[in-house]
C-alpha cells in the first residue's frame, strides 16, 4: 500500500511559519484553529553554545492510527491511498480522536462543530500540485510523497540523510510516518514528550517556545 506523508528537514527549516500561514489560507482555517504549527525547540545548551531547531507539526499519518481506531463513526478513516483523513459529514463531535492523537495535532472546527486536520492538501495533490505548506516552504525543508515509492520526494530526502539524523515523533505504538531530518551538527533531537512550553501562559503565541 502507498504511504503518503510529509518529511521535514529540520537542518533547513528556519522557523519562518510560511507553512502555517499557507495552510490556513489554503484550507480557510479560522483564527485560533490549526492544522499545522511550527514549534520552536530550544535554545538549549550553555550560552553561547546553544542549539535550537524548529519543529513543524501536523498529522503524522500514523501507520496504526489511533484516531481511526477510536472513531465511533468512521469519520476518521484511511482512504484508498492509505491517507488518514476525516469525513466531517460523519463526525459526531465526540473528540475521542483528539484524545487519542498522541501529538494533539487534530483541530476542532468550532463553526462546523467537527474535528478536522491536515489533509495533505489532497485537493491540490490530486491536481498534481504540492501541498500548500510544501509549495510555500521558504527553506525547501518540506517534502511530500509516498514513503513506499523510492522515487518520491520524501523517500529521496530520507535516503539522502544520514540514518542517525532521521527521527520521528515519539512512537507509542501508532507508528507515525512523518520523518524529521535533524543532524547533530545543527542540534540534538528532543523527543516530543520532552519538550514543553516554557511559558505559563496558555496563549497560543507562547506555546511550546522553550526557554
Amino acid at each position, binding site marked *: 500500500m502507498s504511504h503518503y506523508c510529509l518529511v521535514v528537514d529540520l537542518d533547513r527549516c528556519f522557523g519562518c511559519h510560511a507553512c502555517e500561514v499557507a495552510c490556513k489560507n489554503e484550507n480557510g482555517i479560522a483564527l485560533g484553529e*490549526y492544522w499545522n*504549527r511550527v*514549534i520552536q525547540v530550544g535554545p538549549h545548551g550553555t550560552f553561547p553554545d546553544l542549539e535550537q531547531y524548529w519543529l513543524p*507539526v501536523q498529522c503524522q499519518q500514523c501507520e496504526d492510527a*489511533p484516531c481511526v*481506531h*477510536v*472513531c*465511533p*463513526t*468512521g*469519520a476518521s478513516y484511511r482512504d484508498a491511498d492509505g491517507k488518514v483523513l476525516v469525513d466531517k*459529514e*460523519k*463526525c*459526531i*463531535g*465526540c*473528540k*475521542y480522536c*483528539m*484524545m*487519542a*492523537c*498522541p*501529538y*494533539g*495535532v*487534530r*483541530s*476542532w472546527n468550532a463553526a462546523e*462543530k*467537527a474535528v478536522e486536520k491536515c489533509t495533505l492538501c489532497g485537493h491540490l495533490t490530486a491536481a498534481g500540485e504540492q501541498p500548500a505548506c510544501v509549495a510555500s516552504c521558504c527553506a525547501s525543508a518540506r517534502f511530500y510523497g509516498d514513503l513506499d515509492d523510492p522515487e518520491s520526494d520524501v523517500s529521496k530526502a530520507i535516503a539522502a540523510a544520514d540514518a542517525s539524523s532521521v527521527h520521528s*515523533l*515519539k512512537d*507509542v*505504538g*501508532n507508528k507515525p510516518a512523518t520523518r524529521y531530518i535533524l543532524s547533530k551538527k545543527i542540534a540534538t533531537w528532543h523527543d*516530543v*514528550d520532552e*519538550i514543553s*512550553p516554557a511559558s505559563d501562559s*496558555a496563549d*497560543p503565541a507562547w*506555546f*511550546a517556545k522553550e526557554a
Partner: protein
Amino acid sequence: MEIQWSLVLFTALTGLAGWLFVCVAVDEFLGRAKKASFPAAVVSIVVAIVGGLASVTHLSHPDRIMGALSHPTSGIFVEAVLIGCLIVCVAVYLVLLKRGAGVGARKAVAVVGAVFGVLLSFMAGESYLMSARPNWNTQLLPLGYLLTVAPAGIAAYLTVVAAVAGKGAGEAAGKDAAASLELKPYPMALLVAGVLSAVGVLAYTLSAGASDGAAFGLLALAVIAGGVVPCVAGALLPKKPESLLALAAASCVCALVGAIAYRCIMWVVTVPVADLFMTVI
C-alpha cells in the same frame, strides 16, 4: 485538559445504574428485600437512561450517531451496546417481574443484566485506554471506574430498600422491617465496596501522578466521599438499622460524588504524549 462533564456524568450514572441492578440480581438469590426489586430496577433503568442521555450532550452532532453502527470496534460503540443491553435486560426483568413470570427466567435475566452492568462500569473506563495518554493507559483506570460506582450502586439499592420498607409499613414498621431483614450482607458489601473504591482511586491516581492542588483535592474527595463514607456507613448500619434510609441515601450521594471526583481526576491529570497545538478540547 478540561473536565468533560457529559462523559463524567455518563460513566458515573450508568455505572451506578449497573451496580444497582447487580444488587437487584443478587437479591433474586438472597431474597432479603423482595419488595425493593421492582422499584430498584426502575431506578436503575431510569438512571441508566439519564446517564446515556448525558453522553449525548457531549456530542455536537448526535444526529449522526447512527454512523457508530458502522464502526463496531470503538469504545463508544461498546459502551452503547452495553448500555443498550443493560437497559433491555432491566426492562425485560421488569416485565417478567410485573407478569409474575417464572423465577428461573427472572434470575437468568437479572444475572445477565448484572453482568452487563458490571461490564459497562468497567468498559466506560476502558474506552480511555489509549497510548496517546500514558497516564490513562493502565487497567487501573477502568478498574477505578468499576470500583468507584460499586458503593454508589449498593448504597442506592439500600436507599430504595429503605424507602420501600418505610413506605410500606410506616416509620416504626420500617425500622422493624429493616432490622428484621437481616440486611447484613448489603452493609457488609457497602463497607467492602467503600474500601475497594478508595483503594481503586488511590491506585489509579498514584499511578497517574496527581500533580497539582486540584488533583489532590479531587483525590481527597474521591477517597473520603466515595470510599470512607460508604465504608463507615456500611459499618454503622448493622448497629443503627433505624438510620438505614439516612445512611444509605447519604452514602449514595457521597459515593456518587466520589465517583464523579474520580472521573474528574482523570481529566485533570491527563497528559498526552504531546499537545502540540495546545488545543483545548
